[in-house]
């Protein structure tokens, strides 16, 4: 482990490093995308101008960026927190869906509860849904039975199937031609939105989660214990730190954050439980956490970058006739460049 002096100087320049990474990655993105556009016969400058107008320069467009960021912040923290202990959580997708599921269950079980009771209950259920889903792999890992990369990955498949079962079956709506989705949630369970936009309270929850993550890791004894485990778990155990308990706790808390992302998408955006709540937020969160080196400020920047890129994809499909697939190529190329530069940076190797 690096010496104390190095640690403190690293910590002091975290924000600076995060900003530098953001700028570097953004610049790579701009350059690569320009090449892609040229190859597709489009004019990069007018494309960028249109993207700028419809995302950053338009108030609705900017609000949409925040909407896209919300689940990404949460799923990134879901990966970053366990990574401080050296644990790898690729189960964000599954934890997200279980969070949405649990929150929906709460809303359907107590539809007539007053808003001030129902909403916090729904949020808590969302957290618990994801937490329990991640605690299972945590327990398996703590008992040295199954590696958590494997088990979180496997549980990713099961969660959407559980959701599917309920929305094709017991929870299926009878309105809208019985399209397979749940009935709309009772109004008390819906997250409040910012007038006229789709920004919902989930954003506040996400920012709070990020703040809590930062605070716990940097300013509390728990954070120090977690990082000690991440550095050398055997030594940590000998020092009296309850490593198995921390393994379960870290994965559970991480999973809980991902569950909040699912709750947010269900209660804040969709207003009902659907099979299509997440276009891979769990995996995108993994990438964001990795690009950000697991640091909170970096996560903020990278989530924003991903939000702009995906928003640009939608805009350009309409305005330039560019297939959305190009966004995937862009993301892949950015990652490729980052990964290839001296093995990239990020959470462990």
């Amino acid at each position, binding site marked *: 482990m690096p010496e104390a002096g190095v640690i403190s100087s690293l910590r002091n320049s975290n924000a600076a490093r995060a900003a530098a990474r953001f700028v570097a990655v953004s610049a790579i993105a701009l350059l690569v995308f320009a090449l892609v556009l040229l190859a597709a016969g489009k004019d990069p400058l007018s494309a960028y101008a249109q993207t700028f107008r419809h995302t950053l320069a338009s108030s609705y467009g900017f609000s949409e960026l925040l909407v896209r960021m919300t689940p990404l912040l949460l799923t990134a923290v879901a990966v970053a927190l366990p990574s401080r202990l050296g644990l790898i959580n690729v189960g964000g997708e599954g934890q997200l869906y279980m969070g949405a599921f649990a929150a929906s269950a709460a809303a359907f079980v107590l539809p007539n509860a007053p808003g001030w009771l129902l909403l916090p209950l729904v949020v808590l259920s969302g957290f618990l849904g994801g937490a329990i889903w991640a605690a299972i792999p945590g327990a398996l890992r703590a008992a040295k039975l199954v590696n958590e990369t494997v088990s979180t990955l496997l549980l990713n498949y099961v969660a959407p199937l559980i959701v599917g079962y309920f929305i094709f079956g017991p929870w299926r709506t009878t309105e809208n031609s019985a399209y397979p989705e749940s009935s709309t949630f009772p109004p008390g369970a819906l997250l409040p939105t910012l007038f006229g936009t789709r920004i919902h309270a989930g954003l506040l929850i996400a920012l709070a989660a990020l703040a809590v993550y930062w605070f716990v890791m940097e300013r509390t004894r728990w954070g120090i214990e977690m990082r000690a485990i991440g550095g050398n778990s055997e030594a940590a155990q000998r020092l009296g730190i309850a490593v198995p308990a921390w393994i379960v706790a870290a994965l559970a808390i991480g999973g809980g954050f991902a569950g909040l992302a699912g709750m947010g998408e269900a209660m804040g955006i969709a207003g009902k439980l659907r099979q299509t709540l997440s*276009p891979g937020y769990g995996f995108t969160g993994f990438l964001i956490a990795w690009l950000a080196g697991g640091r909170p400020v970096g996560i903020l920047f990278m989530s924003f970058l991903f939000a702009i890129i995906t928003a640009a994809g*939608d805009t350009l499909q309409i*305005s330039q006739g560019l297939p959305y697939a190009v966004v995937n190529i862009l993301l892949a190329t950015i990652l490729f460049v980052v990964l290839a530069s001296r093995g990239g940076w990020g959470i462990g190797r």
Partner: protein
Amino acid sequence: MNRPLRFVVCGLMLLAGLAARPLDAQEPKLIIGAVYVGSVNDYGYNRSFHDALTQVAGDLQGIKLLEAENVPESGEAESVMEGLVQQGAKLVIATSFGYKDSARKVAKRHRDVAFEFAGDGDPESNFGVFFGQTQRAMYPMGVAAGKLTRTNKLGFVIGIPIGYSLGNVNAFQMGAASVNPKVQTIVVVTGGWADKAKEAAAANALLDQGCDVISMHVDSPATIIRTVEDRGAMSIGFQSIEARALAPKGWLTGLGFNWAPFFAETAKKVMAGKFRGEAVYQGLGQMVVVAPFGASVPADVQAAVTKSAEEVRKGFNPFTGPLKDNRGGLALPPGASVGVDQMGSMNWYVEGVVGKVR
């Protein structure tokens, strides 16, 4: 820090270039935006809309068409539709069923933009609903199947089990049973509008069960028709009548859509400022068309199908009680009937259908 620095400089130069660019201004009279759940080349549902809109854009003057393909039926759809409005669309066509919520939300935000949703529901001032009434038109399709099946087992592949799909199955079975009382229709659900591998497996499963005439309600009939043709069975198409090219031997007949007249009228209304959201359901002869018969269909069957189609065109409604459902109960009591606007809420299978609704 050399490499990243170089990138940063390039990036800044590009950004600087942005400011200098003026927009080019070209004013079409009407911008139409369309959202598709799949690819417009899908030989099926999405293509029918694309073809119709392209035709309208070509026929009428001053129309610009913006299209977004492969937009999932999720929150993403709302962003895309909003994006179309931001790009100046004054008429937005939401072609897939699962876009209903998203379309309504965007419509609420932009009361000056006309929306047409392919499905059901209550129209609003700027939100219209429309669909081709394929259900009744499936009755003559059933007649063809009922007459030509040798095993008395018909197969039907459904994508997503919504009321409209159930209605299609029911009419199909009723039409077949009207000429062949022993016939039954087996239903298999794939769970998605366009899961090709599952569609192939579903068709195979039906054929394994002994079905020899297959029809479907999925976005593109191509995969199912090819699979059925490969195994030497007969098929009845849906969504696109072009698909008959895929089954030279087994194609019997089929249904397709012709949206162009409706879109042309709607576009004209929007341009004249006279758009009002309405529910427009048209059937055989208008939005729904019957495909040419396959070479293997004998003349007497063709005559029977054509006669049945004519009856439907004149207003025959097969969904009239008394009708038994497939669980031994009464789906429709005597005197009751299901109208075109209630088709979306159908939630039963008629007697003779093998399948579970929920």
